[in-house]
């Protein structure tokens, strides 16, 4: 009997955590949305939700690693844009498309390497470095395409972006779920993931414990560059055309999803489960607001409010909890005397 009670209390305690709160929020959004139209709950609608933002969501995965590591990569969307533009330009120059794709992935790796060099080895602030590179890589993308929009890629490429590949799922979604599984395994179960958390908590303790801090950071930026380039190419395939402003301004949505997922902006804590829930929340909330005929600007405002809340709420929770603990300790002390 007692054990049963404890089990119940434990599951309640879990709900009290941030993930529990996100689950609750998601359930509310689901219920409200499904009241509006029966089509909302259909598998196709849910898949469409994903597809509309799938490139951002892919980059959310690497961004989660970086923010847990107490770093950030603002340049990721510019690398997406650069990869897409370079691919289009190479294609117009007569380079075979598969080769162009490979080159662009390599360029993504190089972009990440370049970011990482400054941040890990020159000890510069990642905020500053990647802000500069956000501008720089975007500028480079525009150099390739100027003001043109380039389309007319081979049929197979466009189909890869648009047509369901396995069951109802297109390639990009499969890529996302495969990367998600890999990311969960690395972050939650591997030694590398442990190092990411320790560095995010306290890079000095990591260094004093023999962790190769610079190498971990370097690897994360390279991964971020590669995944961003991959996402940029998938974006080009889905849209069928590329412009200089492809993926412009995506960084805000990406970072919002990571932070709303309960990842601390100061690094050191967070889980991919929380981030995945936050992705579902943002997607479904946007969808619901569209169903309710809210304008895009208003939708952005609501998401922004949610972000502020996500940063504030853990503080408020912690303060309330601390106040209770103080009272308990004070009571215990009075008793002792």
């Amino acid at each position: 009997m007692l054990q049963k009670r404890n089990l119940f209390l434990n599951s309640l305690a879990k709900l009290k955590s941030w993930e529990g709160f996100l689950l609750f929020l998601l359930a509310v959004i689901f219920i409200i949305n499904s009241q509006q139209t029966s089509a909302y709950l259909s598998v196709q609608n849910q898949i469409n939700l994903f597809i509309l933002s799938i490139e951002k969501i892919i980059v959310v995965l690497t961004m989660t690693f970086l923010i847990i590591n107490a770093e950030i990569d603002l340049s990721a969307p510019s690398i997406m844009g650069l990869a897409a533009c370079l691919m289009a330009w190479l294609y117009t120059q007569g380079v075979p498309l598969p080769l162009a794709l490979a080159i662009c992935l390599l360029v993504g790796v190089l972009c990440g390497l370049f970011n990482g060099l400054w941040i890990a080895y020159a000890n510069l602030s990642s905020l500053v470095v990647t802000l500069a590179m956000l501008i720089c890589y975007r500028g480079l993308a525009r150099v390739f395409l100027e003001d043109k929009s380039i389309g007319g890629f081979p049929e197979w490429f466009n189909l890869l972006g648009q047509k369901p590949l396995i069951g109802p799922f297109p390639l990009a979604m499969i890529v996302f779920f495969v990367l998600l599984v890999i990311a969960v395994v690395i972050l939650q179960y591997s030694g590398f993931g442990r190092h990411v958390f320790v560095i995010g908590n306290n890079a000095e303790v990591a260094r004093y414990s023999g962790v190769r801090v610079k190498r971990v950071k370097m690897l994360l930026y390279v991964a971020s560059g590669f995944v961003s380039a991959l996402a940029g190419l998938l974006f080009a395939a889905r849209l069928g055309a590329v412009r200089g402003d492809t993926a412009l301004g995506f960084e805000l949505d990406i970072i919002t999803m990571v932070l709303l997922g309960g990842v601390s902006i100061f690094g050191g804590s967070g889980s991919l489960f929380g981030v995945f829930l936050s992705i579902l929340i943002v997607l479904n909330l946007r969808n619901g607001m569209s169903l309710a005929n809210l304008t895009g600007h208003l939708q952005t405002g609501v998401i922004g409010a949610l972000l502020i809340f996500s940063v504030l709420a853990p503080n408020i929770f912690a303060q309330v909890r601390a106040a209770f603990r103080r009272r308990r300790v004070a009571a215990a002390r009075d008793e002792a005397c």
Partner: protein
Amino acid sequence: MEKPVIETRHISKRFDMTQALCDVSLDLYPGEVHALVGENGAGKSTLIKILTGIHRPDEGEILLDGKAVQIHNSQDAQALGIAAIYQEPMVFPDLNVAENIFISHQDRGKFVRWGKMYKDAEAVLAKLDVKLNVRSQARGLTLAAQQAVEIAKAISLQARVLIMDEPTASLSAHEVQQLFKLIRSLRSQGVSILFIGHRLEEVFEISDRITVLRDGMKISSKLRSEATTEGVIRDMVGREIKDFFLKGATKRGDLLMSVRNLSKAGVFRGISFDVYGGEVLGFAGLIGSRRTDVCLALFGIEPADSGEIIFEGKPQKIRSPQQALELGITYASEDRRKLGLTMPMSIASNISLPMLPRYMNVLGLIRRHEEIAAAEEFRRRLMIRAESVNVPVERLSGGNQQKVMLSKWLNANPKVLILDEPTRGIDVGAKAEVHHMINDLTDRGLAVILVSSDLPEVLAMSDRILVMREGRQMGIFEKAQATEETIMTAAMGQNHNVAEVAA
């Protein structure tokens, strides 16, 4: 006789486990330089913090001009005419000299009158006979000049009591003389100065009266003319060795590591010693003696510039902690919170961190059960009080955190274990357990380098003691020759020659 400006009467202060101050009464007369000396942890800083309103005394009172006053915060202290300057001057580097002098003045009107401010600043500096351009930025100033700015700031606030906490610690000999000139001119203007210093020759040069604190109690207070260096040192260390676990004589094992002439520019130089298995080598010295920097060089965090490290017969250049770990050298930092443990993470993941590859399979995934088993083993062996090894370290007491940190480094199977202040801030019981553990380790043939500011601890635990002072090695004492007096004499830079004998 004149009345004292400020008096403390029967001040006591307790922090959790430690009695920082116990019934301390002190007085300070106008135009007097009163020196306060004592070992690290004797209670000097606590007394300063009480006088400047950072801490409140548990018992006792503070009297200003014979009237009891309450000092709740630094604004109160400022209003009462009490100012303090510290080892590291606290100037704003981007503001100019005049702005820094008047930074705390809230009574100069709503708008800045630059012309008047520069003139006033010049007047204050002239009064102190300091030549500085009031328009120059504080950034480029030498430490001594920055201190002069701080003193000018205090004078501009009509400070009558100036507390100087080790103001000479980072000054050159020439700058010290400049500072002393300034102190003498303040004294002639009737300002009272409480001077905290580690260098006895300076204390004897500048002060009118010398008060010794030890373990939070006032031991003696003498006019300079009546005090002697030997007497002051005796008062500082005169504690009896009790409550201490005396290390049993162990057989000296093989030579593990030889350090020859290890130097790092501007930090330390000429450090040479041998470390044998089964032996505790104590590192003694006062704050600023650079003992920790030598340890950081041995562990590869801040590698030395020159000198040799010979480990198990082979010369090694240790450039990174990974390399030190591979050789079998580990370093447990004095700063548990900032450099030792990741506080929000579990006991198990803290213990396994330096040796994480040992717990990974071919795919790089952590074998959790092995990691937990290893941590459980240490929890039992070192009696870490926690409900499980999955508890975050931040929830443990200081002593148990210390044991987690020791476990973390023991788990790395070291041959040479460097312990930097392993018993600082932990209670008597945990302290004794740490001492037992050190004895246990040396019995098994490990070498321990024990850095400690707790002199009785170093004396009780060490087979040999290396004494450092300001980056220099003052000597190595065998257990038989080492007494509190000889060690403290060497650490304070007295009788340099005697100390060399054992080196």
